[in-house]
């Protein structure tokens, strides 16, 4: 087979090459891979061109082992080639169905009207012989693929749908031919030819496959939509000139221009200009996001207003968009446990049907003198049995459900997460960065003495300028906001002898004054009396604010309160969780009072406060002990153990870190609404899978006995094998169409207007 495989040169994007010396390292690594004939690295483009027969995975691995990153650069894979191939196949299926119908339908209709000659005359037999030959031509032209498939599978000890169709139509044809050539073989009653049945069944099944193929195409629409977000060209600044180049030619670190209304080509960092960018297609976030120098932009999103320059940081398969596409693709081919059950059934399905058909034949021959009944029953069993509906039930729904979730900025890693999401009873949310924005801000400055509030903030900023505490950032931001004229240098210049007192605060000398900035404990350690402000401190804590005391020369000067504001949509999202019957638990390392205050603001059911990060997983386990099925929502980094411990781990992404390993589900939009969207879509998808599986099982469980003739002793009717063919073609189509119904699903109360 080796010589049949097309050997095309592979183009790889290589990341992490900082110097020309890296070129040789990468080239040598590539040349060491067996099968590589030639490897050339282009340092300017950060690409490698490899010729030979080595597999791409081995090349990527070689580069990764050498300490760099690599990914295959594929020529614009927008799926058009695949679509064209599928359309050609669709046309060929329709053609086959048409040809088969051309032979089968007239025979069938004429038979119904009693226009066909009987078998006992010479001309009659001649006519039937001719019909048999025409049907054979149909079996070869329109049904040939069933027969070759059946034969090859048989030799490989497999039985599949081809086996059933080939056996069913083949036996009908053989029996009919035998009757035509030697009618005396069977009793007079049984002298009937079934050429029309064979041809019509082949027509119906081909037609059904064609329709099914069309319906299947729609199940992968989500992926197509994502792929179409990637623009074909980009405007690159080279040698001071702006030129349009194909997107495959954009290299890492190149500067790109984006004009209003244009789609951003690759991922990068804004270096000049400012604008607002619509990221809704990736994150589901409805409002445009403001971008200025230093901000990250993501390929595939749309620049709304201004024009800006940005530097490319990730290209090709490393972009967020490409990773999303890959993740959705992977998840779409994944199966939850419920689907594996169907797989086990379908694995033994076809041989079981063959056995049932053989037994049907035997029983009919024993009970009834007319062998044509036995044949019809046996043939109908073979034709009506539909392993495809069973096999299609889960994957089709997963395809649509996972794609649907991606539309809402919800990336589901695997099918198991989907199934577990449908069973959740409790959602545990991390406080900081999940319920709240995770960026503390100064909310209140209270002066206790002669110093005006602005001066207090200035002193605090001076003291905190050297600190890396999140509190410091809040104070500095507040100071800058109130004094736009000041730069960083103005603040740091005046603080001396800075000292951090771990867990309590900081001290420094500013303009000859000794300044302490920290908690009550710090003040008490310095012998500063805090009695008079105790009530104020409690009140602030009760409002979810963290009070920090400022003392100047051993005298209490003021209180600066800092709070991590609740995200504007957290309350609405938690209400939606309650609406679908979930308990919401908040977990945090904060004090009980602060946590309770936040909980009261957003409507949390239970608060687990003072929990150290390393104990969060234990708390999740405690809830599971109580019999709850627990989702954990966190930032994916600090909460990794708890995410892993939970039944379904949700990582709230910042919009760019797509593949968070510890999470089962990544939310592109930094909002709790994503959790509810994910749960609603999961439930709808699971319900769809159950409908499909029930339909497929029920269809086979009902259809096979009826086909075997179980109704004959009761009602005196036999199922027409052509009807069985139509039923079988319809059953897979029904499954695919039902899965497509999911495309229309809308989550309730998305809160996007809030």
């Amino acid at each position: 087979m080796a010589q049949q495989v097309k050997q095309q040169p592979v183009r790889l994007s290589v990341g992490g090459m900082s110097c020309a010396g890296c070129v040789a390292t990468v080239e040598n690594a590539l040349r060491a891979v067996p099968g590589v004939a030639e490897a050339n690295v282009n340092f300017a483009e950060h690409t490698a061109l490899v010729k030979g027969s080595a597999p791409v995975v081995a090349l990527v691995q070689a580069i990764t082992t050498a300490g760099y990153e690599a990914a295959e650069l594929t020529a614009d894979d927008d799926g058009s080639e695949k679509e064209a191939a599928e359309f050609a196949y669709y046309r060929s299926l329709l053609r086959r169905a048409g040809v088969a119908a051309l032979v089968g339908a007239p025979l069938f209709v004429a038979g119904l009207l009693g226009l066909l000659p009987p078998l006992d005359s010479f001309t009659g037999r001649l006519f039937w012989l001719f019909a048999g030959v025409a049907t054979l031509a149909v079996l070869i032209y329109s049904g040939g693929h069933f027969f070759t498939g059946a034969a090859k599978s048989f030799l490989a000890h497999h039985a599949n749908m081809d086996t059933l169709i080939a056996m069913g139509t083949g036996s009908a044809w053989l029996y009919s031919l035998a009757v035509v050539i030697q009618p005396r073989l069977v009793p007079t009653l049984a002298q009937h030819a079934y050429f029309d049945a064979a041809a019509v069944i082949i027509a119906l099944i081909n037609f059904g496959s064609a329709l099914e193929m069309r319906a299947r195409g729609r199940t992968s629409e989500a992926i197509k939509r994502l792929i179409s977000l990637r623009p074909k060209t980009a405007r690159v600044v080279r040698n001071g000139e702006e030129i349009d180049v194909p997107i495959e030619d954009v290299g890492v670190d190149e500067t790109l221009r984006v004009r209003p209304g244009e789609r951003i080509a690759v991922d990068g960092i804004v270096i000049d200009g400012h604008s607002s960018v619509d990221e809704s297609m990736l994150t589901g976030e409805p409002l445009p996001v403001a971008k200025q120098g230093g901000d990250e932009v993501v390929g595939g999103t749309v620049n709304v207003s201004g024009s800006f320059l940005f530097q490319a940081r990730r290209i090709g398969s490393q972009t967020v968009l490409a990773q999303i596409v890959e993740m959705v693709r992977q998840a779409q081919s994944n199966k939850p446990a419920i689907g594996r059950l169907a797989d086990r059934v379908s694995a033994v399905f076809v041989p079981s049907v063959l056995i049932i058909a053989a037994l049907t034949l035997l029983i009919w021959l024993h009970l009834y003198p007319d062998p044509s009944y036995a044949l019809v029953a046996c043939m109908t069993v073979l034709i009506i049995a539909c392993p495809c509906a069973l096999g299609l039930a889960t994957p089709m729904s997963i395809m649509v459900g996972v794609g649907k979730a991606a539309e809402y900025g919800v990336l589901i890693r695997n099918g198991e997460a989907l199934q577990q999401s449908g069973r959740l009873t409790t959602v545990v949310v991390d406080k900081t960065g999940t319920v709240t924005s995770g960026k503390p801000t100064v909310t209140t400055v209270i002066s206790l003495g002669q110093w005006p509030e602005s001066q207090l903030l200035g002193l605090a900023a001076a003291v905190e300028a050297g600190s890396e505490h999140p509190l410091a950032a809040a104070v500095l931001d507040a100071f800058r906001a109130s004094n736009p004229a000041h730069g960083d240098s103005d603040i740091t210049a005046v603080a001396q002898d800075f000292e951090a007192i771990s867990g309590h605060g900081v001290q420094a000398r500013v303009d000859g004054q000794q300044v302490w900035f920290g908690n009550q404990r710090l003040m008490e350690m310095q012998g500063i009396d805090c009695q008079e402000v105790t009530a104020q401190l409690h009140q602030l804590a009760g409002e979810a604010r963290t009070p920090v005391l400022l003392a100047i020369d051993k005298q209490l000067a003021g209180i600066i309160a800092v709070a991590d504001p609740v995200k504007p949509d957290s309350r609405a999202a938690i209400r939606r969780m309650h609406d679908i019957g979930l308990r919401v638990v908040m977990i945090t390392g904060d004090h009980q009072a602060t946590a309770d205050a936040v909980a009261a603001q957003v409507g949390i059911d239970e608060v687990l406060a003072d929990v150290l990060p390393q104990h969060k997983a234990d708390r999740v386990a405690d809830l599971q002990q109580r019999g709850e099925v627990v989702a954990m929502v966190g930032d994916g980094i600090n909460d990794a153990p708890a995410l892993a411990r939970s039944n379904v781990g949700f990582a709230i992404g910042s919009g760019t870190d797509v593949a968070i390993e510890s999470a089962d589900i990544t939310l592109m939009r930094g909002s709790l609404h994503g959790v509810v969207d994910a749960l609603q879509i999961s439930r709808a998808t699971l319900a769809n899978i159950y409908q499909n599986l029930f339909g497929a099982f029920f269809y086979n469980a009902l259809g096979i006995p009826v086909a075997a003739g179980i109704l004959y002793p009761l009602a005196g009717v036999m199922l027409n094998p052509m009807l069985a063919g139509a039923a079988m073609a319809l059953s897979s189509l029904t499954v695919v169409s039902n899965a497509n119904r999911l495309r229309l699903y809308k989550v309730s109360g998305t809160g996007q207007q809030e």
Partner: protein
Amino acid sequence: MQGVMGFMLVLDALVVAVIVFIIWWFWLYKPKAVRSGNSAAAVEVLVADGTYTPARIEHTRGQPLLLRFLRRDPSPCAEKVLFTDLDISADLPLEQPVDVLIPAQTPAGEYGFSCQMQMYRGTLVVK
């Protein structure tokens, strides 16, 4: 009458034989496996006419295994190959070889691989 009875007996025996044959041929028989050679070369798997060729691949634990799938069947059934228990899957475009890497640390055992609908079926045996 005797003749008809005899005929039916022969028929019964025949059908029972066919059933036994079905059970043996499709369920009990293990097809001859293709052993993966040295780790550098890929094992090529042809996807055509409803079967993977080879359909049973044996591999020694501790080495990565590269499977190169080549899809010849235009039917959409063949468009994906799934190793459900290994959480590995790949899209198979028509007439384009696609490499699937089975990691070296895959524990010993039998892993089925199939298309989405289980019509194409194969087994990977890691020893």
